[in-house]
């Protein structure tokens, strides 16, 4: 019997796992995909919101402001990139200034610091690339950007180092109430646990409704994005929003923490819980709307596009806490935007809640720090030389676009909860994330993965089983 099973290894599940790993508890995470960060967490804006969007008093408001506060310290502890680049909400019509004022007021009630409304000219002084049509903007210096993969992976690795077990490629098929806890049925056998935490993203309603009669409903709300070459990553330095519409925050234009430019998302409710395909209409819509914010969107510099699904719960707020009719079953459901910003705070909030009800002792040997994979691209010449001296593989460049070496790739495979797939290597090292989109490095990365994992190259996948790259040897089809 486990103490706690967490269903889902997205950013929310991993944040909860990391917080619970502070305690003397037997915790495991069950994840259907082959890696952590494979669902909603891998395809979003990578924004750490300031916290003016959510209704005062809501969980979204409270946890956003707290998550934003926690992010900087956490980025240092767990060694992932985070930047407080500030954000703006643009207003294109003087008549709409009232909406900015409402956001300002809401933000102040939520406890967001340093918020203010600036004129279009002041906004263009900060961001010369902004459209001349901008007449006012809400400026939030506390807004930030983070790498969603690195955040999630860092939380997961640190949880693993502190004793949390991860069962990847394991799909939960049923959850049943039992004496003293729950029986969790999966594609790889049964698990028993005193406590179950439901952090299963778009599937969270399905899991919740297995054990509770107080039903919730989650709709996958698709958002599509275009990612631009680093050459135009400096088009804006802050995250640029537009006044919200009834479908969400509008299309944003933002630098990513790695220096690309990102435009998106739209918001379309769909039926398919795995429907992460982009559409011609969606992509053209975000480029059109995103283009309103800036003088010119350099669409020739797009290097890839992608879509993610938000887990939108009908009532519009996060559902966090113990189900009323299912003791020991805790939800972290309906985690849509600003879920990424909130993740560290959700982890803290839910772990506190669980320990309050089911007391546990703090571990004495909790390891709070994690060292990330060294980046040759970011290292100074001296640091580069030192890394190569320690390990010559750091001099062998595999991904030319992002300057990722064999040393980094081997590290990403060998470390706790290491990469086993091409996407896993990509998200940990950035190999294949550049302008050639893995055309050059993927055969080499496949070769390194096969060598380090001791398997044939034909077994290496992009992500889940079924996504193999190679379908046999020549004259063997």
């Amino acid at each position, binding site marked *: 019997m486990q103490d706690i099973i967490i269903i889902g290894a997205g950013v929310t599940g991993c944040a909860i796992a990391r917080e619970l790993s502070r305690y003397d508890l037997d915790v495991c995470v069950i994840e259907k995909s082959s890696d952590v960060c494979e669902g909603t967490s891998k395809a979003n804006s990578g924004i750490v919101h300031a916290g003016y969007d959510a209704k005062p008093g809501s969980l979204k408001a409270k946890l956003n402001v707290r998550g934003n506060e926690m992010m900087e310290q956490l980025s240092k502890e767990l060694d992932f990139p985070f930047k407080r680049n500030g954000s703006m909400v643009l207003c294109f019509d003087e008549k709409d200034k009232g909406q900015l004022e409402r956001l300002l007021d809401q933000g102040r009630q939520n406890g967001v610091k340093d918020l203010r409304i600036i004129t279009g000219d002041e906004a263009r002084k900060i961001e010369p690339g902004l459209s001349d049509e901008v007449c006012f903007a809400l400026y939030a210096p506390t807004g930030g950007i983070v790498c969603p993969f690195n955040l999630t992976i860092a939380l997961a690795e640190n949880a693993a180092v502190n004793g949390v077990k991860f069962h990847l490629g394991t799909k939960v098929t049923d959850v049943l109430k039992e004496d003293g806890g729950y029986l969790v049925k999966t594609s790889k056998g049964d698990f028993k646990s005193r406590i179950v935490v439901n952090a299963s993203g778009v599937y969270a309603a399905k899991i919740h409704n297995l054990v509770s009669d107080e039903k919730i409903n989650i709709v996958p709300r698709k958002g599509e994005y*275009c*990612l631009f070459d680093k*050459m135009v990553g400096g088009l804006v330095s802050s995250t640029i929003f537009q006044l919200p519409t009834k479908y969400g925050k509008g299309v944003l234009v933002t630098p990513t923490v790695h220096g690309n430019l990102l435009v998106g998302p739209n918001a379309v409710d769909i039926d398919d819980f*795995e429907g*992460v*395909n*982009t*559409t*011609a209409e*969606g*992509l053209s819509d975000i480029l059109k709307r995103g283009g309103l914010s800036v003088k010119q969107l350099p669409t020739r510099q*797009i*290097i*890839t*596009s*992608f879509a993610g699904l938000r887990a939108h719960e009908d009532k519009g707020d996060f559902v966090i806490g113990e189900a009323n009719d299912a003791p020991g079953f805790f939800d972290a459901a309906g985690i849509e935007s600003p879920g990424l910003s909130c993740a560290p705070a959700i982890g803290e909030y839910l772990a506190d809640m669980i320990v309050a009800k089911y007391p546990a002792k703090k571990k004495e040997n909790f390891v709070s720090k994690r060292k990330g994979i060294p980046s040759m691209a970011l290292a100074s*010449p001296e640091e*580069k*030389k030192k890394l*190569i*001296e320690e390990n*010559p*593989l750091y*001099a*062998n*460049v595999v991904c*030319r*676009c992002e*300057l990722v*070496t064999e040393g980094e790739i081997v590290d990403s495979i060998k470390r706790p909860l290491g990469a086993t797939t091409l996407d896993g290597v990509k998200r940990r090292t950035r190999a294949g994330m550049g*302008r*050639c*989109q*893995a*055309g*050059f490095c*993927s*055969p080499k990365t496949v070769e390194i993965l096969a060598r380090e994992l001791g398997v044939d*190259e*034909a077994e290496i*996948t*992009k*992500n*889940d*089983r*079924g*996504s*193999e*790259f*190679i*379908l*046999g*040897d*020549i*004259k*063997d*089809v």
Partner: protein
Amino acid sequence: MEKDLVIIGGGPAGLAAAIAAKEAGVSNLLILERDNKLGGILNQCIHNGFGLHTFKEELTGPEYAARFIDKALKLEIPYKLETMVIDISRDGDFKMVSYMNREEGLVTVKAKAVILCMGCRERSRGALNIPGYRPAGIYTAGTAQRYVNIEGRMPGKEVVILGSGDIGLIMARRMTFEGAKVKLVAELMPYSGGLKRNIAQCLKDFDIPLLLSHTVVDIKGKERVEAVVIAKVDENSKPIPGTEEEIKCDTLLLSCGLIPENELSGGLGVGMNRVTGGPLVNESLETDIEGVFACGNVLHVHDLVDYVSEESAQAGKKAAEYLGVNEEKDSCDKERCAIKETGGKSDDKDTEKADHFIKINAVDGVRYTVPSVIRLSHMEDRQTVRFRVGAVYKKAAIQVLAGDKEIMNLKKAALAPGEMEQVILQKSVLESIPDLEEVTIRVKTD
């Protein structure tokens, strides 16, 4: 480390440039190559058809490369393999080339001259912004070629190819040879971007349909490609609703254009041509930074490797001239004399005219020219100017104007964007026109 000349890339461009530079007397030179052997992308081009112009015989890619590699070895041209150049910067007149490899770690070479020979990369699915899922099974044609020809692995069994660039056409045949079913090649434009002979030998001979004015509008399959949806496009390349057709396949190959790989050039601050994506160069294939030359596909994408070799030899020779001109006058050894014999036109009396620039205008269907400017003082007796046209023309002519005077009118039965064109300008003709400022190259139609 100090070098007179560093050549970045050991593919066909780098090899030809190095050989020409060495033969012109540059002995303190170095080729830096990122792969584990010289020859570049030719090593994976195991089909034949290379070298018809240069050697008057049909060679495979590796055979063509071997001719140059053998020569480079015979000339004892130093090179480093598995060595990636990560930065080029300037220090006064010197170029600081930083590279990394496992043996030496991070090293910076101080070079008097550099020849950029980094080649090009393929346009990816992301850059094409094709909607749909992002499963395994989507490859650029060159990546698939590497899997099949170098690794002996099959990236797919049922294949659709988007784009009729030469690598895509070659891979249509190659995948068929290895037992895969190539269902069709879709081409966005109303004409193919590949060589005529490749369409005949790689598609027609194997009954593979080429659908012009078609594109891929959706990719299906969550883990591995399961199907693609193709559609006809209108004259603005926009898909026409109602013409969609789903084609079952497990693989989508992309052959939708090549992009010169100029990240290093950009870091160095070299001025770029927006049409080619390569550096702007003069008659010596020298960029706007003195002592930095460019040739091959990093400069503009070529159709035949023969032209890459020819162009690169020119760059190597001109780099040697540049180094010769700037060397101390007292070191007139055998090598210096060799420079004088071969490239002696750039002597004192000519350098007085060094300011005489002639701009080359590309208009009326000519998309660009390489070079885009000629300094009469540095011009050889005959100067090859290469370019591509922007559309298909039947019964047209290439007209060359010096100022407003026609100096050439070359009848062409057909012109196509897939094939590189060239004209050869005579120095004597340009010199005979007083105060000539511009040469214009255009397509003339009836």
